[in-house]
């Protein structure tokens, strides 16, 4: 439990959804939103809980450790910010969240595009919450709830928030924020502009002319897999590092979760970036080659690194997530022999954390080809390169941690040896 308000502020600012614009920049907006959620959930407290929420209820009844951690993370939130009084209320509020799609909000101080992150904000920062969100059984139960929500966000019912009203994602302000003019709109005259679901809107396609491929014919030019902001470039990373310490070193064996190709990446380089809410939510092949390994590692979603404390960079737990969160592993054997293998690792953070590959193992991919999508939820991207594969990184990389560098899909980020 953190008592000091400025420490809470620092930890709040470091949360991924805050950095990415999914939550208000200031902490004062959290509790009013949560009070609204509490009231809304109470109004329908006789409704039957969604099956995945019922499963979490059963887990809390049977597993004493989970029950304790949930009860304590609720209790450890100070009274001024406590909007969940009992584990039963938490279930009600989760059930309420997954029956709705997030709506647009023009006022940045009231933006709660990630309502589950808002709900968990203070609980995540308690001592018991830190343990709870690392408990496999609790995390698995939450994942099942997020899957149910994802199914809703994939369904046509979720489109009611895709409208041109003031809280619709097609309102003039939302159009500007999301740069819809750069996107391919299925059918502007159709209802909901032709989007099949909220998720279809979230990972909408960008106009190819907006993201030209750098040097398509030069195999030494590596392009960005995603739109985003560079978090870190780390060279000669260790194969086994204590990823949980404040410096958040990359630990290749943890990142690659048992891949037979792990040793190839030991001593190699990592470039990590994170996506903001308005960014294009698909990723592309950074090099041409053949997909040799493809999977999704089911990991954590709401765990943050407590040691980050007053981290001046305010970058929160980005490095830590690559070792433990739900993430995709797509290893491409590059055509260019100097590159060897390149691993594209999309990382889910909070909310739905859904990773969908759109290629299969054995497929050939061309540089700049779309190879996957993030459904609703937070997202980060790590690219792993073999030792000695990269001559130099050319993307803007901040020297001082307060500055950030934007990268764009298909634009040059590095030159291979």
């Amino acid at each position, binding site marked *: 439990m953190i008592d000091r308000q400025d420490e809470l502020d620092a930890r709040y600012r470091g949360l991924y959804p805050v950095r990415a614009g999914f939550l208000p920049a200031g902490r004062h907006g959290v509790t009013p939103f949560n009070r609204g959620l509490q009231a809304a959930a109470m109004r329908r407290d006789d409704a039957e809980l969604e099956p995945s929420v019922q499963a979490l209820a059963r887990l809390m*009844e*049977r597993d*004493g*450790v989970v*029950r*304790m951690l949930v*009860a*304590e993370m609720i209790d450890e939130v100070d009274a001024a910010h406590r909007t969940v009084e009992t584990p039963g209320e938490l279930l009600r509020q989760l059930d309420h969240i997954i029956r709705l799609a997030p709506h647009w909000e023009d006022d940045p101080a009231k933006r709660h595009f990630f309502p589950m992150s808002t709900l968990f904000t203070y609980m995540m920062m308690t001592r018991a919450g830190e*343990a709870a969100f*690392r*408990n*496999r*059984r609790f995390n698995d139960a939450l994942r099942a709830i997020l899957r149910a929500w994802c199914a809703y966000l994939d369904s046509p019912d979720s489109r009611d928030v895709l409208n041109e009203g003031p809280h619709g994602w097609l309102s003039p302000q939302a159009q500007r924020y999301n740069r819809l003019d750069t996107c391919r709109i299925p059918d502007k005259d159709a209802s909901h502009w032709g989007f099949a679901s909220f998720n279809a809107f979230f990972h909408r396609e960008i106009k190819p002319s907006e993201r030209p491929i750098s040097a398509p014919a030069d195999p030494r030019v590596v392009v960005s897999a995603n739109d985003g902001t560079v978090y870190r470039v780390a060279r000669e990373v260790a194969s086994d590092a*204590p*990823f*949980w310490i404040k410096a958040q070193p990359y*630990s290749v*064996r*943890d990142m690659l*979760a*048992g891949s037979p190709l792990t040793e190839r990446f030991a001593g190699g380089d990592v470039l990590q970036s994170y996506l903001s809410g308005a960014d294009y939510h698909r990723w592309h092949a950074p090099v041409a080659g053949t997909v040799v390994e493809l999977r999704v590692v089911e990991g954590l979603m709401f765990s943050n690194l407590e040691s980050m404390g007053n981290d001046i960079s305010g970058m929160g737990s980005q490095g830590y997530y690559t*070792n*433990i969160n739900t993430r995709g592993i797509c290893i491409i054997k590059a055509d260019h022999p100097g590159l060897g293998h390149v691993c594209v690792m999309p990382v889910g953070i909070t909310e739905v954390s859904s990773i969908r590959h759109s290629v299969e193992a054995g497929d050939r991919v061309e540089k700049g080809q779309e190879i996957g999508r993030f459904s609703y939820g937070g997202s980060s991207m790590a690219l792993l390169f073999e030792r000695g594969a990269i001559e130099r990184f050319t993307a803007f990389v901040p020297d001082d941690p307060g500055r950030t560098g934007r990268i764009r899909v298909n634009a040059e980020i590095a030159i291979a040896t």
Partner: protein
Amino acid sequence: MALLQHDTRSGPMNEQDAHAAFHRNRAAVQFAKLDRDFDQISEFQRFVRWELDRGNAKPMRPEVKILAEIIEREPFVRMYAREGLSEIPWPRRHFDSVDQMLQAINYVTWTAPIFRDVNSISWQFPLSALMNFWMMTPSGKQLMRMPQFNDAINDVMAAWCSFLDSPDSLYVLNDGPTGWLNEKALEYNKVVEDYEIPDRDAPHWGWKSYNEFFHRMVRADRRPVDDPDSNRVINSPNDGVAWAIEHYAQRDDAFWLKTQVYSLGNMLNQSPFTERFVGGTVYQTYVNGGADWHGFSAPINGVVKGVEKVRGYCWSESDAVGPDPMSGPYSQGWAAGVASRAMIYIDSGDTTLGMVCVIPIGLTEVSSLDCFVKEGDAVKKGDVLGQFSFGGSSFALVFQPGAVREILVKPPLTGRNAQPEDTLRANERCAIANLDGDGG
């Protein structure tokens, strides 16, 4: 479970106050003792380390390899395992790495406990002695609650249990200075006085394994059954010392708090029988040393209505307790909600007494328990219901509301030295029941 030697303290005698005071003062009460207890643990850990260092490591058991793989593979298991070791203060840190710790655990699973003298608790409970410092660190407490880690270490303990069930474990049943059949050990364990001995002239006195010796059968005349024909008198199912008595137990309560109140839903694993016990009485005892019998018997006459075994967290201590030199006894209320245990429901046939639930609870070490009865069996007071293999053991009896007129034990005994006269023996009366027709 070995003797807990608390300093004498006659606390405030309101039951709840006394209980809370015990937990509050435990660290202070233990203060003088701890260093000595910890020294003994250190001595044992240094011995195992020395064995490993001089090349006496044992072949790795597959179960220990799997545990090692899980620590390798699961980032948080590795994190808590490593951090836990590094949180042990230097003078008490006898293993340099998680790998070495696993080698030490593996070593112990190829050995049987030995007897040195009456105070040599670490040698009698070697796995507890190894785990002790690790499990009490903040990270260690989280580690012991990780389902992945717990499942794997339960499998290691099962492998050790097989070893202790095998003739390979017999080497400690001898009359040498560290054997369980030397004069001091026999006296300590009251082997001759209280127990059936298969064959004194045979090697190892006829026992076929260490576990057979551990849960040796007590002589019927040493545990006479009180009032065998009536359920007016409820008998203790086990030898033990009272740990806590709680009336008006709740269905859902915060069992993790300092008072370690009981939460019936968790204790009974949400059994359909749970509701009838809500508001009733829980009475918990623990087996106290080698002289105690490691079996348990029916406390009332009746019919078994259900038997359920739960595999739980055997190395988890409550966050609310301080350093526990015995790896668990301070956390027995917590253990009643989360540890490996069995629930045996016996219906008395009397609507006022109703059903009594007998819960043997495994603490640390092997935590292996066998039940000899099944649903539908009629049982008489004193019938053996089951036994513990090697490991620590605690017991809870759960009664329905209004079933108990009086518990015949001074509540609670935990804050004081456990004296021989405080020890209840199996089949001795521990409570008086209310029965149909009592009126009132």
